[in-house]
């Protein structure tokens, strides 16, 4: 399953909930304000890092750039464009938005 998360983990529980419910082999794509969940050295980074062994973690590049955060992405997060977003949706059998 592809999971999309569009809110900051500091604002809403969507990312925390998503991480608890993503099965192995899932992909998590952080978009919009969700890209703050991709950043290194925050109080949330370890929670995201913890799923990396079993889930692919991605962040939408244009959203990182817009927020001036491209230089702070933690290792292991794959940055993709909207075309990559489309590919992720196509590659996974289903998709769920955590709003």
């Amino acid at each position, binding site marked *: 399953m592809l999971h999309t998360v569009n809110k900051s983990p500091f604002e809403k529980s969507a990312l925390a909930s998503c991480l608890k419910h993503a099965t192995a082999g899932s992909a998590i794509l952080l978009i*919009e304000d969700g890209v703050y969940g991709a950043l290194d050295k925050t109080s949330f980074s370890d929670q995201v890092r913890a799923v990396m062994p079993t889930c692919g973690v991605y962040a939408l590049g244009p959203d990182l750039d817009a927020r001036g955060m491209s230089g702070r992405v933690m290792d292991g997060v794959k940055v993709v464009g909207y*075309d990559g*977003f489309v590919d992720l949706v196509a590659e996974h059998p289903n998709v769920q938005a955590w709003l």
Partner: protein
Amino acid sequence: MKFGIMVNEGPYQHQASDTAYQFAKAALAKGHEIFRVFFYHDGVNNATRLTIPPQDDRHIVNRWSELAQEHNLDLVVCVAAAQRRGLLDENEASRNGKDANNIAPGFRISGLGQLVEAGIQADRLVVFGD
């Protein structure tokens, strides 16, 4: 692949409509088909032709109308959500005794069944919201 897209928030207030639009554009550029874009909750406000956004920023409503025209997209606005929020076409306005309508070109008002149908007919249904 056939994509269904659901937009749950209005223009400018949330990024949902922007992201959905960029996703739709990217999908079309890759040769995929957009089965339908369904606007629900405040998303129906993406269909008003009365917006006057600042000239130096994107025109969200017109962008959707233009994309729809260029690619023959089906942009559907939920009738119940639209009625709640005062988004009307000519038909809805006259049926409900309203003195004006405000729907933008390229959008049509229809029932929630269109959303369910999109879920059934499309290969993937992607939701953009808050």
